């Protein structure tokens, strides 16, 4: 990204001055997620998020599918089976040796459970509360704003349901409720933050897969955790969204993943649309000038006939 394409709007903490609080967020460590969905339930209970059930999806144990207006936490279930033994008809003498030859351990695949190369990936997804939030930039009413905690919140008394934020989010987080007409998403429990309480999902999480706190603290803890996992042989552990130099200026809610982000339904290199906006406006200015020139040209020559 060039310097010219950097973000133009004032963000936290500048926009809050002395009222600014430390920036808070989530560190979701998927390596300890057990897929219990307590976060989904706690979020729905606390925030009064309506039910939206389409029955059984057939996608492993995931029947809530994705984030949306009526789902502000979503637990993904990935089943991965790696063919041990490779191509060919002859089975290896030892599954353990074969797994070792294919470096399955180094790649983060547990080889216990009969060494069949099967593993679960479970991850609780949530709004990323981006440093450069496409939804906030796009909102034409000022309904979406950045709070004193550095989080991104939709004000439901302002939102008129234009839907522009829905297409501006690189993660597909926001959506419109069909019966209500407004857009809804995770508020990082803005109401609970006012009373120094942690968000409902983080409080409900029984394994501390969801950790709430000041972003700086969470990032240091996450870096230590990745290092620890690498030492333990889980080479595939990586942080997602913990880098200020990424396409959205870093996430307020970031993740420790055990595979590529797209495996969990996350974009591998998200970029906030606003960064490309100067290019688009420049092209529109040029096209407008061309349109005026075209009209002028239509009057040249056999004019007025």
């Amino acid at each position, binding site marked *: 990204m060039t310097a010219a394409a950097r973000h133009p709007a004032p963000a936290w903490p500048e926009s809050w001055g002395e009222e600014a609080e430390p920036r808070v967020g989530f560190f979701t460590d998927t390596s300890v997620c057990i897929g219990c969905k307590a976060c989904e339930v706690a979020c729905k209970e606390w925030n009064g998020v309506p039910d939206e059930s389409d029955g059984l999806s057939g996608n492993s144990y995931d029947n809530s599918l994705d984030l949306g207006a009526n789902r502000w936490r979503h637990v993904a279930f*990935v089943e991965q089976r790696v063919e041990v033994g490779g191509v060919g008809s002859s089975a290896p003498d030892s599954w353990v040796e074969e797994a070792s030859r294919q470096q399955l351990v180094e790649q983060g695949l547990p080889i216990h459970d009969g060494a069949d190369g099967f593993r679960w990936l479970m991850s609780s997804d949530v709004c990323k509360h981006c440093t450069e939030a496409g939804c906030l930039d796009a909102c034409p009413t000022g309904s979406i704003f950045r709070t004193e905690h550095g989080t991104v919140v939709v004000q439901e008394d302002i939102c008129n349901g234009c839907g*522009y934020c829905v297409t501006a989010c690189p993660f*597909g987080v926001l959506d419109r409720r069909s019966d209500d007409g407004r857009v809804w998403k995770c508020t990082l429990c803005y109401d609970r933050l006012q009373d120094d309480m942690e968000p409902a999902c983080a409080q409900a999480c029984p394994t501390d897969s969801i950790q709430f706190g000041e972003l700086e603290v969470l990032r240091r803890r996450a870096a230590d955790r990745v290092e620890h996992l690498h030492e333990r042989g889980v080479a595939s552990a990586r942080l997602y969204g913990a880098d200020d130099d990424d396409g959205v200026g870093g996430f307020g809610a970031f993740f420790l993943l055990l595979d590529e982000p797209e495996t969990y339904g996350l974009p591998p290199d998200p970029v906030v649309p606003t960064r490309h*906006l100067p290019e688009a406006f420049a092209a529109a200015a040029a096209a407008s000038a061309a349109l005026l020139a075209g*009209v002028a*040209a239509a009057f040249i020559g056999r004019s007025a006939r």
Partner: protein
Amino acid sequence: MSDRGGGEQRMVPKGKPRSYYDQPVVKRPVWTWEIPCYFFVGGMAGASAPLAWAAGATGNERLAKRAWGVGLAGVAVSPVLLISDLGRPERFLNMLRVFKITSPMSVGTWILAANGTLIAPAALAAITRRAPRIFAAAAPLAALAGPGLSTYTAVLVANSAIPVWSEARRTLPFLFAAGSAASAGAAATLLTPAAAAGPARRLAIAGGIAELFAAETMERKLGEAGGPYESGTPGRLAKAAKAMTAAGAATMAIGRRRRGAVRIGAALLLAGAACERWAVYKAGFASAADPAYTVGPQRDRLER
């Protein structure tokens, strides 16, 4: 395998990017038919203003009045379309709480408001032949502001996480500008006596040719991201738009001395421009629905 991008040699050629049960990564738009209709109607109104002003300035009053009429109708219908698409139409005034340069929809709200404020008095003054001072004040400004109304809608869709729109951000404004010129010219041609319709006819033909060129350029530059324009509903709409626009421009050019041919050509150009906007609109849905369009280019970027 666990780490496709992990530096190990690829055992299989590059195929479809991985995804979570083939589910979309980005959300599809919640917009309905009003939005592509507005892209067409608003664009036509925006291009009609400079056409009308230039016609008046060159003494072609018959063309001027009708082109102002098209502009007036356009800016009258546009807000109705936009407000009815809102999830909470009664809250449309919230759009006027703020002006945000980072939001093309906010910028566009003010562009439409400005165009309405300028085109309506200019058009009413031109049609009724009254209030020359109001006309003199509003008309030139309306002519200057009009093209902004024709092109900002391209920025509006380009400023999104939907690849087929976002990746076309440099070409889409030209496509919308050309389509607006073609439709403004064609609408004025249909309404104006042939003897006075020359400039409108030329604008329609030139706009149609430019629209074909812009669509072709956009689709070529999009490469793989332009897949939605190759198949399915948006693909059919894009093909139909091109066929109608080409036939319309050719009919108007070849049959310019025959009134029937000119009218058929103008109608085809209008239909082509409307159809092209529908193709762009529908392409966004197809692009959002397939995670490969979102993940593929991002993965390529990381591995480059």
